């Protein structure tokens, strides 16, 4: 019982800390870094629904970020539709795209699936780069879309300071974590894990593996697209090379893999550990040692895969439980 109480205490402390951070951190640069950190934690957690639980390796998730970003931006710029509504529409479109990609590919294994997602994402990006007008919709090809900072306010998903964005992404992250937790304990979660690990055995136990994966893919792409709208409103500028880049797709996958795919804490831990490495090495070594953080990512990725294939989450969770044991032991005494 005390153990549980300590855990609840930790949870409240973490929540309180997260809520209070913008009051302490006044530097916009650091707040920006934090927002992006949560943004990535959100993306990797969404990715994890299919990349982690379903045991496949999607490497094109930036497509969904792009679909979300473009949908809400076009709807708000051209038709004055609230970005919040555009966010949902973008999510639905992305879910459809996810199912379209998933349907033929989930029957394949491993490498083919990874390749198909890359090809789809890159093909999609190239298309967008080539299209100025898609029917009535203005995409502006490779130049992308600029969002003028007018109509500040919650309804228009636009704010002058950074802290509102911080709270929005925090809430999104919390929501997606709770959702992941619920799924991992549900029938769908069991079906995904089983289908990812031993598809034949899963099928024999009554699981339509491809269908379970499709559901996961639809959810994952829907959630990912929501972050696309966030990204558009936060940066006020989207273009194919940022919102749909292969680099983004890979970074999402890397963070989840290093943190530990298939676990709930893994993707968040990955973002907590890797994003600051990236940001600070960019800030301090960016001009002298460009790409240093990517070398660090690569090295960490390889080491983790060799020595902790389930990700850093595993040893950290063990350490956390030991800490809990010790604390609860002390309190009982």
């Amino acid at each position: 019982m005390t153990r549980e109480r300590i855990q609840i205490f930790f949870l409240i402390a973490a929540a309180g800390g997260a809520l209070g951070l913008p009051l302490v951190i006044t530097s916009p640069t650091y707040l920006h870094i934090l927002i992006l950190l949560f943004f990535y934690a959100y993306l990797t957690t969404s990715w994890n629904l299919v990349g982690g639980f379903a045991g496949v390796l999607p490497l094109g998730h930036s497509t969904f970020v792009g679909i979300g970003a473009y949908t809400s931006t076009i709807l708000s710029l051209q038709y004055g539709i609230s970005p919040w509504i555009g966010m949902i529409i973008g999510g639905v479109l992305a879910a459809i795209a996810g199912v379209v990609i998933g349907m033929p590919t989930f029957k394949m294994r491993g490498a083919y699936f990874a390749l198909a997602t890359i090809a789809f994402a890159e093909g999609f990006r190239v298309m967008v780069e080539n299209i100025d007008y898609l029917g009535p919709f203005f995409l502006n090809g490779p130049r992308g879309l600029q969002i003028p900072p007018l109509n500040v306010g919650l309804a228009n998903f636009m704010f002058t300071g950074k802290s509102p964005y911080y709270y929005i992404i925090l809430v999104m992250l919390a929501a997606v974590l709770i959702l992941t937790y619920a799924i991992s304990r549900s029938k769908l979660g069991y079906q995904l894990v089983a289908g990812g690990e031993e598809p034949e055995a899963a099928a024999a136990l009554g699981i339509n593996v491809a269908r379970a994966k499709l559901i996961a893919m639809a959810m994952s792409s829907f959630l990912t697209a929501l972050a696309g709208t966030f990204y558009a409103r936060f940066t006020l500028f989207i273009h194919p090379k940022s919102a749909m880049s292969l680099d983004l797709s890979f970074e999402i996958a890397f963070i989840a893999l290093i943190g530990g795919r298939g676990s709930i804490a893994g993707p968040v831990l990955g973002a907590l550990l890797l994003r600051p490495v990236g940001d600070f090495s960019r800030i301090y070594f960016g001009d002298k040692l460009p790409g240093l953080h990517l070398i660090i990512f690569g090295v960490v990725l390889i080491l983790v895969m060799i020595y902790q294939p389930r990700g850093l989450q595993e040893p950290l969770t063990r350490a956390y439980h030991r800490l809990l044991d010790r604390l609860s032991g002390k309190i009982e005494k």
Partner: protein
Amino acid sequence: MKLLEVKSLTKQFGGLRAVSAFDLSIEEGEIFGLIGPNGAGKSTLFNCVAGVYPPSGGDVLFSGKSISGQKPWNLCKRGLARTFQIVKPFASRSVLYNVMVGSFATTGKSAAAERKAREVLAFLHLDKKTEILAGNLTIADRKRLEIARALATEPRLLLLDEVMAGLRPTEVDEMVAIIRTIRKNGITVFVIEHIMRAIMALSDRIAVIHFGQKIAEGTPAEVASDKNVIKAYLGEEYAVS
């Protein structure tokens, strides 16, 4: 009532006819044995019944209805469960988790699935090992886990593919007892086994397959004295245990 009927079933792999015009019928409540030398086509027959391979010819009826060409997951929901000769545990997950995957076939609720899983695990004497990772189990326990998962789907017919291979004699005896109890609980059992002592003791009837064809069928005593069977096995499997 006939629970499973296999009618002139054929399975062709390229030029190889692994199962050839095979007929079979299993009564509800029976323990039916299938034996045959290595590579005779036993597992292939199972796979055709369980929907892993579409048959090249013939038909399979489950409680009177044709199921040939149906997918494994649908067959499972209709009450047909199977184990794999090469066990396929979800290695990174606990024993309980593995069995819950099975019990989710009949329920959508986690609590109910867990209750069912614990029940089955107790039945298979695995209740002390619920939290062990499936990948760390011994062979004997893996075989039991395989059965536990299948039972958790609440089948009417259970296909067991060599669940005693690699077990020690005492473990074989335990497994025989377990299978008997499964039948007592109303589940029909169709079992492939190489260990003669066990399958002879267990089965009500036995069919013998050799090069994909049925060469004998009858009670264990009839099969054991069949000339064709002795020829097929000469000096081979009888030597084993």
